């Protein structure tokens, strides 16, 4: 089995001291939750002994908990590719609200408070309102989805997400006949997201999808990865994952979802319209003006590999764009 549940990960496999601490933190929460049966008593004793000795859990791991009851990825949502290491996926991040260096988000994630969290759903919906995150999730079964993640900067990862289909969430709030697009917004709070103190982008971060893209079964709202809740640097507690588009479409730490009739403004498109389009479908044939999109570097590898149209999901999604000129609508 390629994807292991977090509870399958054993001491010897990860040696980084920080990770060790993080795993310990995870084991503790697993022990408190349902997964304790999988953890042997000696390990636990050692963990708690350490704890009493005053060893400190790194801030970026404090908020991460095990997720119970995750439905494994059905075959069509799984990949025959090795997932990126948890360490890499949580220390190499673009989340400018937590800093522009790739390592900044992990360093600053502890500033983001994700409990309590609620999401405002508004616009062209039959059931608008503010929904507590627990309630938003409770109505759906958590599913694992192992997806490629292709950043517009020409690097990529493979990530086992845990989430719920976006389409299911949208159906539940009953889009009106006027709804054609979905707009998303990130939390705006420079205290928790210190990157927002500088006007690098026009905060809050905004993203959007056409309604049919949002309803596509591949699109999910993720609440976790690698069997655990999302760390702050990966967009806790709720983020969008649209695997056939460049990573910047996957808006993080979402507080607002709005259905509307016109195409929403999106942050990177507004910042540099020549470089970042609204659609942002992975397309090896359309270069970013400053670099080629033909190849990508999978994190953990030295050499680049060819990029795939729609990030390898062309069979499932190419139909959404039939008749469109993807050079113009990039």
């Amino acid at each position, binding site marked *: 089995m390629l994807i292991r549940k977090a509870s399958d990960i054993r001491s010897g496999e990860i040696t980084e001291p920080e990770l060790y601490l993080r795993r310990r933190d995870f084991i503790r929460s697993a022990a408190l939750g349902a997964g304790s049966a999988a953890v042997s008593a000696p390990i636990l004793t050692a963990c708690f002994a350490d704890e009493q000795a005053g060893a400190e859990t790194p801030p970026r791991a404090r908020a991460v908990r095990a997720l119970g009851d995750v439905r494994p990825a059905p075959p069509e949502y799984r990949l025959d590719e090795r997932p990126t290491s948890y*360490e890499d996926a949580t220390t*190499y991040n673009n989340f400018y609200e937590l800093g522009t260096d790739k390592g900044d988000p992990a360093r600053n994630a502890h500033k983001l408070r994700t409990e309590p969290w609620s999401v405002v759903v508004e616009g062209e919906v039959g059931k608008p309102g503010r929904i507590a995150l627990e309630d938003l999730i409770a109505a759906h079964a958590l599913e694992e989805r192992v997806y490629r993640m292709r950043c517009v900067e020409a690097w990529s990862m493979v990530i086992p997400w845990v989430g719920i289909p976006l389409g299911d969430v949208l159906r539940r709030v009953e889009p009106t006949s006027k709804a054609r697009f979905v707009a998303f917004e990130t939390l705006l709070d420079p205290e928790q997201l210190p990157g927002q103190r500088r006007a690098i982008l026009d905060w809050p971060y905004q993203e959007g999808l056409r309604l049919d893209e949002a309803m596509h079964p591949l699109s999910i709202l993720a609440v976790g990865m690698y069997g655990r809740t999302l760390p702050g640097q990966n967009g806790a507690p709720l983020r969008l994952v649209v695997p056939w588009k460049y990573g910047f479409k996957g808006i993080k730490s979402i507080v607002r979802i709005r259905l509307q009739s016109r195409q929403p403004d999106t942050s990177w498109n507004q*910042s540099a319209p020549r470089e970042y389009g609204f659609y942002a479908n992975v397309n090896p044939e359309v270069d970013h*003006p400053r670099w080629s999109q033909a190849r990508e*570097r999978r994190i953990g590898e030295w*050499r680049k590999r060819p990029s795939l149209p729609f990030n390898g999901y062309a069979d499932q999604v190419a139909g959404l764009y039939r008749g469109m000129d993807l050079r113009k609508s990039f």
Partner: protein
Amino acid sequence: MNLAGRPARVSVWALGLLPLLALLWDFALDGLGPEPVERITHHTGKWALRMLLLCLAVTPLRRGLGWRTLQPHRRTLGLLAFTYASLHFATYLVFDLDFRFGELAEDVQKRPYITVGFATLALLALLAVTSTRGWMRRLGRRWTKLHRGVYLAAVGAPVHFAWSVKADLAEPLVYASVAGVLLALRLRPLTHRIGRSDANYATLPRSTKTGIGNPSGTKGETTEVW
């Protein structure tokens, strides 16, 4: 202690190569993190730029503060800038392009930040090759003119840096400002004003001035070039 002699120059080389050693050290320790190629590209690019700026600081420091012993190290700093820039370029060629030279040509034509980077590197290469005693003698007065090309490199490198980032211009702007100040110090009214403490420079024996001999071969003329 002679701060301009050969041992001093060797020391500057050794110090200047420490960032490279640090990179190798990091590689041995943690494999340079999740994206080693990016780490190497950024590290070597930034050190190329830093060495270039240090190189450009030598003459103003000598003029302003009378630090003459720095002068012979100017060439070393220039060569260090070229060394890091070459490693930076090699990283790109090997790991990003996988030796696809056709794509390199395309990148240089199509992507302005690569165009500027490439031009800057070509210039640094030209200056490095002609930085020897032999070339100084051969080129005579034209050597001085040619080596003012370093000013262009000092514009090109920060422009390349700024152009390469996605949205956050804070860091490249810091480097651009330093380059701007160092270039402004070359403007005539400023060199006049701060030139005082250097008044006796032209009367010093040549060897203390450049450490690499007399470029023009003319008597009594200052080897002051840039």
